[in-house]
Every structure is written in structure tokens, then in C-alpha cells.
């Protein structure tokens, strides 16, 4: 069986340039539906009546500021890439990575606060609301880990100067996903703040 596409690097590069962003956008739609399912589940379960409000931990509030700032920082890197200022781009990606890890840390601090206040993920003393709070924030973190991995890839490629003013698709894909994670968190934060907390 012969081939005229598999080993053709020009064809592959062209495909990547053309399809990476649309593939990401459709994937984001499915992630929206996943979290839509989760947050709808919260609303449906609250239709039952009894529910105990949970004070929103300060860690979650701090992480909201962190992820918003990180989006701007990462975006500055793209502007730097377009100007082929690799030094600034590297700083931008490294800072975003640090902010991303800080987000994870402040989320963890939020869970510690919840636990200390007697709200548990599972077990006899857990409530539906507390379980939802841990699970939804945890699932966001799971998606964010994907974002952190993509940041590391972007960092390596930035260091190797693989992006330039004409071709920065990989950077843009990672950036779009990062912006999405930020937007998703802001939605989840306010949703949880006003439905559970």
C-alpha cells in the first residue's frame, strides 16, 4: 500500500497549521458541556430543598485573581513572539507557569480550609454540596494540569526559538486553552459562590 501523505512533512505542517485551532475550539465546546453537566447537576440536586451553605474559602478567591493575571502575562508572551523578542517571551511563559502552579497551590489551600471547617469530599459527614465543591474544583485542576503540560512544551519551543512572527500556532493553541481555563474558573467560582456558598 503506497502513501502520498504519511511521510510528507510539508503536508503534515500544513495540516497542523490549518486544523490545530479548530480542533481545540471544538474540544473546548465538549469541556464546556462536561462542566455544564456538572453544574446543572448541582442545580438539579438543590431542587430537593435542604442544603447547607458552605463559606467560600479565601484560597479560591485568591486563585481567581492569580488565574486572571496569568492570562494577561501569557498573552504578553505572544506579543513578544510576534516581535521576535524571545527573552521577554521566555519570561512571560515562565511567569505563567509559576502563576499556574500558584493557582494549584491556592486551590489546595482552599480544600484544606474546607476540610478544617468540617466539609468533606466523601463519607458519612459529607454533604452533596461539599462533595460537589471538591469534585468540580478538582476537575478544573485536572484540566489545568493539561494546560501546565502545554506550557512546558511552549516553554521548550520558545527557548529553542521554534516560534516566529509568521508561525506561532502552537503558542496560540496553548494560550487559547489557558484563557479558556481562566474563563472557566471564573464561571465556576461565581457559580459555586452563589449556589453552594
Amino acid at each position, binding site marked *: *500500500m*503506497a502513501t*502520498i501523505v*504519511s511521510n510528507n512533512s510539508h503536508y503534515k505542517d500544513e495540516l497542523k497549521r490549518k486544523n490545530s485551532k479548530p480542533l481545540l475550539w471544538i474540544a473546548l465546546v465538549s469541556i464546556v*458541556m*462536561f462542566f455544564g453537566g456538572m453544574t446543572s447537576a448541582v442545580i*438539579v440536586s438543590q431542587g430537593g430543598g435542604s442544603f447547607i451553605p458552605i463559606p467560600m474559602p479565601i484560597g479560591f478567591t485568591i486563585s481567581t485573581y492569580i488565574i486572571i493575571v496569568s492570562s494577561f502575562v501569557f498573552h504578553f508572551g505572544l506579543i513578544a513572539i510576534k516581535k521576535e523578542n524571545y527573552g521577554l517571551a521566555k519570561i512571560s511563559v515562565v511567569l505563567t507557569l509559576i502563576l499556574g502552579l500558584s493557582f494549584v497551590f491556592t486551590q489546595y489551600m482552599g480544600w484544606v480550609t474546607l476540610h478544617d471547617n468540617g466539609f468533606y469530599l*466523601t463519607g458519612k459527614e459529607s454533604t452533596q454540596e461539599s462533595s460537589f465543591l471538591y469534585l468540580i474544583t478538582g476537575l478544573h485542576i485536572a484540566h489545568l494540569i493539561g494546560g501546565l503540560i502545554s506550557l512546558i512544551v511552549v516553554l521548550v519551543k520558545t527557548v529553542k526559538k521554534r516560534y516566529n512572527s509568521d508561525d506561532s500556532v502552537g503558542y496560540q493553541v496553548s494560550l487559547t486553552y489557558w484563557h479558556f481555563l481562566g474563563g472557566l474558573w471564573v464561571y465556576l467560582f461565581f457559580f459555586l459562590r452563589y449556589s453552594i456558598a
Partner: protein
Amino acid sequence: MSTHHTKDFLFTYIFSTDHKMISKQFLITGFLMGFVGLIMSTLFRLQLGWPGESFEVVELLMGSWQEDGVMAPDKYLSLVTMHGTIMVFFLLTAGLSGTFSNLLIPLQIGARDMASGFMNMLSYWFFFISSVIMLCSLFVEGGAASAGWTIYPPLSALPQAIPGSGAGMTLWLIAMSIFIVSSLIGSLNYIVTVLNMRTKGMSMTRLPLTIWAFFLTAILGVLSFPVLLSAALLLTFDRSFGTSFFLSDIYIGGQVLDHTGGSPILFEHLFWFLGHPEVYIVLLPALGITSEVISTMTRKPIFGYRAMIGSMMAISFLSFIVWGHHMFLTGMNPFLGSVFTFTTLLIAIPSAVKVFNYLTTLWKGNIKFTPATLFSIGLVSTFITGGVTGLVLGNSALDINVHDTYFVIGHFHIVMGLSAIFGMFAGVYHWFPKLFGRMINNKLGSLHFWITIVSSYGVFFPMHFLGLAGVPRRYYTFSEFPMFENMVDINELISVFAIAAMIGQLVFFFNFVYSAFRGPKAPMNPWKSNTLEWTTPVEHFHGNWYGDIPTVHRWPYDYSKVDANGEFVYGEDFIPQTTPLGDNEKDGGEH
């Protein structure tokens, strides 16, 4: 693009990124899974037709799953559950959509491959792994999942509930989660390929209706499967980590469980938000295939091309706002029930448009009765007969009377099961030359069709009467209920037809395998069809067209086009999409 290169076996046949090979992988895996599901249904029909009787074949196939040649009750439930799961998801979702979306999207839109060949390969291998895990779940302690294919809690949420709630259920959830990932990856690829990779001239209104169907199916998958994933995740937490999303105040074996505050109804909402679009994920590809086959085989343009697209869009949209009709008996507010009744009955309108267009395309057509044509007409038949009973079940006032009875089984097997499998068979017969480069035997194909349609109506039509008499679904036996004694003969008859249906499929399997290796070599365009896939060489190679990809100049349904003198415009009764429009000639898709 001229680096011809022979690849080794592993990357040609196993880890191929060529959409045509992946299509064949989906087809064969789907059919193998379907065969398992078929055997399961035959086994439990033996129990329902002749309850308590001993059968050597049951002993042979079921081993310790039977006692003294009789199927154990909990194993009956496992068989019913696994039959439903395998048929709905593994055969009719991945098997159907995976096969034909992969085969036809690049070929009919004029692309060398999918947007991402790697993701395409990944999609198949996730499907394969999930199939293996699902089959392995048959052999674990306690048996396979047995809470029904809808896996409602608490049976699915408490490992100690019934034997099938243990390891079998855990594996079911793992397999389905992997399946969902496979489906999502596949759907992403299909959508982007259709939007981004069409050849020059292939506007959206020149797309064959197959592509529209696969495109909308993929959109449904992307929007609905993630919600099932969220339900599966919450269920896993309830099962394994002690949360109470779907569980509340349960006593089991005299023991009070810790769960409190949850509701199994929440699961139903999440499940059916996928579950109803899933009906159309299964059905739309079959409808698209039917449009293509009917138009080609009647040598007529499809009637109402744009109306067909519009009705598929309407069906897709409506499928998201009807899930409550599966839940009329959950204590739903009657007003909300009436809303769901209204939205459900609305689906009858686009469905009727499609049926009308199929019939008007067939009307006075120069019909060539190939097996593909027969199965397509069979689909039109089942879409009508199964759809009519949908009007009963979609109406809350009527549904309440027959809810969870055999009426429901009869309805959805005809409208969804038969229609989808008929569409799949139509597709396999029609595109067999493209898949395997050989022709399939038409006589055996026609025999397969007639056995299948007679026996499957024989199975599912009488079920409506059982349901109207109140016979409930999922019962192991009806011999203990005096009120159902007069139903014994009907059950026996249904089982006889089920066995006949299974034998009919053996004809197909023989024909399929024999023709794939020994059938006569296929010509390039055996059906004198207009679409682009028939412009590719019979021999498969990665890239589809040796030279440039052809440019498209017209819609795909210019059949029997005559001039003012009644002569065929280009001397033939078909005009390929690659033929430029003549002076003053209008494109059929544009108006």
C-alpha cells in the same frame, strides 16, 4: 506529494492513520461486538420463549452462567444489560458512525485524510480497548453489569446491590468512559474535517447528505457525551468513594448505609441528556446513507435536498430538549411533562419531512433493487412504523400506561435499532466495492434482507401487544404470573423469529467474508454514482487521489437530467460532481 512508500505491516494494518483502514477497523470490531450482542439476545430469547427449559446451546455457551442447562436469573439480567450496551454503543454508535464517517468524510468532501490522522487512529484504539474491557467484564466474579443499559442507581451505585453491581459494573464504567473519549476524539476530527478540508468548489450546499448526517451526528456527540461522562464520574464517586450524589437513605441486607441526600433522578437527568441525542447519533448516519443510496439507485435527484438538511438540523436541535419524556414516571411536575410532550411531538414534523422526501424520491424512480436499496427501503419502513409508536410514548398521558412495558421495547428496537442497522447494512452493501475493492454477492444480500426484515418485524411487532397487555420489560420469566399466561405463545413466536433473525445474519457474515476475499473485482464506479469517492482508484493508498484533488462544480444528485428534447444532458443518466456546469445550467443544491 509524491513520496510513494511502502510501509510495514504494523503501520499499514494495525496503527494506520489512513482513514480507510481505520474505517475497516471500526467496521470489523463493530460487527464482532454486534455478533456478541446478537448471540446474547438469542440466548435470553430462549429463556423468555421457553422459560426453565434446558438447552444444550445454553450449556455450551454459558458455562457456569447456567444451572442444569437453565439460565440463572441474575445472568439473564447481565445478558439484557450487555446486549443493550453493546448494540447501542459499540455496534450502532462506533460501528456505524466510526465506519462510515471515516470512510466517506474525506472521500466525499475531497480530502486526502482526516484533519488529524493520529487522533483518528487514537479514536479507534480507545474504542478497541473499551470493547475488550467490556467483553472482559463478562468473566469477572458476580458477572457483567446487570442494572440495564441505562445503569440507573442504586443498582449501579451500590456494589453490594446485586451480583452484577460489583466488578462487572466497575468495568462497565471504565469501558464506557474510554468509549466516550474515543467518541469525542472521533467527533472532533469529523467536524473539523468537514469544516476545514473540503476541496475547491465543495460548498456546504454541495455536500452529499451522508456528510451532513455525519457532521450533525458528530456535533450531537460532542455536545452530549461529555454529560454522560460527568454522570459516570459522579456514579464512580458514589460507588467507590462514599459520596451521595445519587443515593439517599438506603437499607440493604438489613444494614443502613451512610448515604444521604442524593437522588437517583439526578442520574436520570444526566443520563437522558445524552440518552436521547444518542438515539439520533445512532439514527442520523443511517438516514444519511439511505438518502445517498435511494437517490443513486432510483436514478433520481433526492427530493427536497435543502429540506433534508433542515430537517436533520431540526431533529438534532430538538433531540436536546426532549430528554424528560424518558422520565414521565419520576414524579415530574405535570406541566413540565406537558412541555416535554410538546417538544417530543415536534420531532414528528422533521421526521415526516424526511419520510415524505424518501417516498417522493422513490416515486416513479428507475429503481435498481440491490441489497443496499432493499435495506434503505426497509429503513424507511421501520422509521415509519417505529416512529408512529413514538407519538404514543412521547405523550405523557399515553406513555404512563405503557411505561417500562414491551411496548417500549418494540418501539425503540424498530425505530432506532432496526432503522440504524438497516442503514448500516445498506452502507456496507453500497460501499463494499470501495471498502474491499470487490463486489458483494447480491443474491445472498437480498436473501439476507428478506430474512432480516420478516424475522425482525416478527420479533418486534408482537411486542407492542405484549406491552399493551401490561407485560413489563426486563423480567426473567412470566410463568409465575397467571395474568400473563395467555402471552406464552406470543413469547414463543417472538423467540422463533429471533432465532431466524440470527440465522439470517450468518448468511450476511458468510457473504461479507467470502466476497471480501473472493468476490469479483469491483469497477471504479459500479453504481454510476456522482459523488467523489468513486473518482478514486479501486486500490487503496494513503492520500486517495494520485494527482490533484478534483474540483467540484455541482451538487451530488444530478441523476437522469434531461435537456429540452428529453435526452440525457451529458449522454448518461448521471453527472459526476466533477463535471463543470454547462451554460445556463443551475446547480441543484443552490436553489
